[in-house]
């Protein structure tokens, strides 16, 4: 078991290194010299040379990468070209906003979707099952920006229950903060619900046919004990992986939802930085997002043996 944990942690390192090389290379591959782009059309060759030296652009690609990596590892992601602020604190601040919304949404979505999927599977072909499948298919096929706008229209404009624009941190006031994130969270819950329901349902149907479920009934267990003690863990294992993928994906930015609800999240930061050609921020964001993705999936892998002890062998 200990070995499984160490193994997984160590094997995440090469993935992260490859990601860092890709991020580094991506910026270098963009045509044009970052120095001259930063300085604009009117720069003299001397100015360009000076800034190249300052940025370490005169060394070989390998030394540039190592320098960059060392800086990154010591927490120095550089400064934003636009505002001059250090990149890392900026990313962390924006990430906290996105993460609050995403974690809440994925948690709620799983809380609703897993029981719904299991319920549908247990009563396969019943009216309830057909209903759950229909709703989840419908939700899957609605684009998130449209759903977000409709929610905004309904709860924000017509019912006037929640504020339409902006974000308030939970540190300031809990209830106000809650009122601000309600609509974006609801949007994400509805968008992600469908996939999780379908996965939970399919996995449960698979498990329900297996002999150990019949065996559990043959022991005289109540139907509830059969479902929760015997079916749940086994059916949840593949769903757990999906939830991890969704969480990892969403934490990397929910640019569309953030745009619809005007939330200062990581996704918007990245999109804005791309438009502004703010390369240090773009680089920092992408690297940060890949690290988060790897970390979330690492965590999912490490917890997987709880649901399926066979993988830890």
């Amino acid at each position, binding site marked *: 078991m200990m*070995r499984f944990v*160490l*193994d997984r942690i*160590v*094997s995440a390192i090469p993935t992260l290194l490859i990601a860092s090389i890709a991020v580094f290379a991506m910026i270098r591959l963009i045509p044009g010299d970052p120095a001259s782009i930063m300085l604009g059309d009117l720069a003299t060759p001397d100015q360009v040379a000076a800034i190249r030296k300052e940025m370490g652009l005169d060394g070989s690609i390998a030394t540039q990468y190592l320098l960059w990596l060392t800086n990154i590892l010591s927490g120095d992601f550089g400064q934003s070209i636009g505002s001059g602020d250090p990149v890392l604190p900026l990313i962390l601040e924006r990430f906290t906003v996105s993460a609050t919304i995403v974690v809440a949404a994925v948690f709620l979505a799983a809380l609703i979707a897993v029981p719904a999927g299991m319920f549908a599977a247990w009563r396969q072909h019943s009216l309830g099952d057909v209903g759950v499948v229909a709703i989840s298919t419908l939700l899957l096929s609605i684009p998130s920006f449209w759903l977000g706008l409709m929610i905004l229209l309904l709860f924000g404009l017509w019912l006037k229950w929640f504020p339409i624009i902006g974000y308030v941190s939970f540190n300031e006031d809990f209830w106000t903060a809650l009122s601000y994130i309600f609509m974006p969270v609801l949007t994400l819950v509805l968008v992600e619900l469908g996939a999780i329901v379908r996965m939970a349902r399919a996995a449960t149907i698979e498990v329900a046919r*297996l*002999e*150990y479920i*019949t*065996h*559990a*009934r*043959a*022991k*005289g*267990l*109540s139907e509830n*004990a059969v479902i929760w*003690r*015997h079916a749940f*863990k*086994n059916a949840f*294992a593949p769903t757990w992986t999906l939830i991890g993928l969704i969480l990892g994906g969403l934490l990397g930015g929910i640019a569309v939802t953030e745009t619809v609800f005007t939330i200062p999240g990581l996704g918007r930061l990245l999109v804005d930085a791309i438009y502004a050609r703010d390369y240090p921020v773009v680089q920092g964001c992408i690297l940060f997002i890949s690290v988060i993705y790897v970390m979330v999936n690492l965590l999912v892998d490490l917890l997987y043996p709880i*649901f*399926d*002890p*066979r993988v830890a*062998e």
Partner: protein
Amino acid sequence: MDNSADSAVVAARNLSVYVPGLNRVVDGLDFSIEPGGMLALVGESGSGKTMAARAVLGLLPPPLKVTEDSSIRFHGHELVGATADILRKVRGRRIGMVFQEPMVSLNPSMTIGGQMAEGLKLHLKLSRGEIRDRCQAMLERIKIRDPARCLTAFPHEFSGGMRQRIMLASVMLLKPELLIADEPTTALDTLVQRDVLDLMRELTRENGTAVLLISHDLGMVSHYVRDVVVMHKGRAVERGRATEVLSAPKHDYTRQLVDALPRRSAGGARSTTAREPLVTIRDLVIEYPGRRTMFGKSEPKRAVDQVALSVRQGETLALVGGSGSGKTTLGRSIVGLVGITSGSIDFRGKPIEVGTGLLARLQRRDIQIIFQDPYSSLDPRQRIGDIVGEPLKLEPDMTAAARRERVLEVFGEVGLDRDFLTRLPHQLSGGQRQRVAIARAIVRRPAFLVADEPVSALDMTVQKQILKLIRDLQERYGFACLFVSHDLGAVEQVADRVAVMQDGKIVEVGERDDIFDRPKHDYTRRLLDAAMLLDRKFDGAKGAA
């Protein structure tokens, strides 16, 4: 209801199970078992035996239902139509059930201890400590190594035989009055099979538990059970003492079943000593590398250990051994599916090529394999005609018309209709699928065929047909065959020579009759003992003698 039925532990009268709107799966079945008695329902897949047994516990998979005029009395109490509450009090506590597949009948995500404890906690309301003591005592009783550790282990840490013992133990912990055992040993190899059945007999005798055994294996049943009911298409076609049914079957179907029991082919083994060897194996070692982790490697596992063996032109050499003996690995290595660690395998004097290179592919035209499980060895999305015709596409000069003609010819030879050309694998029965697998293997007239447990997933009567088919095709095509099997009954029917394998080593090789009649190695003797070959016990007619 007469008295005999009321003294019975369980008595089924006119038991019928049906699919609403469709046919009856069980049709008017009667049986009863006295306290401590044993009864077997014997039949092939689709005979309704399993559904009859499940009906007793009210555990029919939907949409199956029991007809209203059916009756199942348990100690005189009617179970048909009983409430879910009553059924739950009977299940586990008074009627225990053991399932067929030890690999899927224990919950993989729950510890052995947790699963054993469930019944005790639910029905007897014992304290934690008491439950632990009882579970541990039971594991000791069934001779599990390190019972305390076993309680916290998960099912995947045990072999199939061990899991089946654990399953039996967990069911018998509650000392039920009736044990339903649904093909409890079908998935196990011969030696382990015997172990588990002996244990079942001991445990049920100790507790005076009556047994309803479900099996397709008339031969095995007759060694353990006094009374049998033979089922065919949902009906009981014959009943009586197992030994009498076996020696003097009255119904046509029973006769077919008895005929299908392994018996030495009268034609006898062909003497092949004079023939040239086709495949020669020298000092072969195959090791599976230990699992690589970031912190080093676990020990490599030696699956085949210093094996020397040759297969001669046109003969059938049977490779026999228990599970884990390395016989499947050896068979696959000859086809080039497994890399060898050291030693050599020569085919027609040239070393076997591994991998997918041109030489390997050319060589493989002459060497084919039939796999054990016809359900997973055919591509579920390919039509049967395409599956059989695919190997012919490697012939550069063959026209589509010629291919089709050859496919139809082979269809005829393996006994498949032209209709099958456009069908998909899932529309076929197990036996039909295995015919397709055989057709695919012989379509290019190979010189050598590896048959890896080709009949162990099939019903007895179908087994017999497939074995005969392989032998007939061998007469026609003259290919040599390595017949890998744990089933000595099947081996006795097809083999010319037999090689016995244990722990990766060949412990004995010889002519079939020598191995069966004059086994030299101790392991061979144990295998033969466990195989309970019927011809020895009942008709005594040794075909080849």
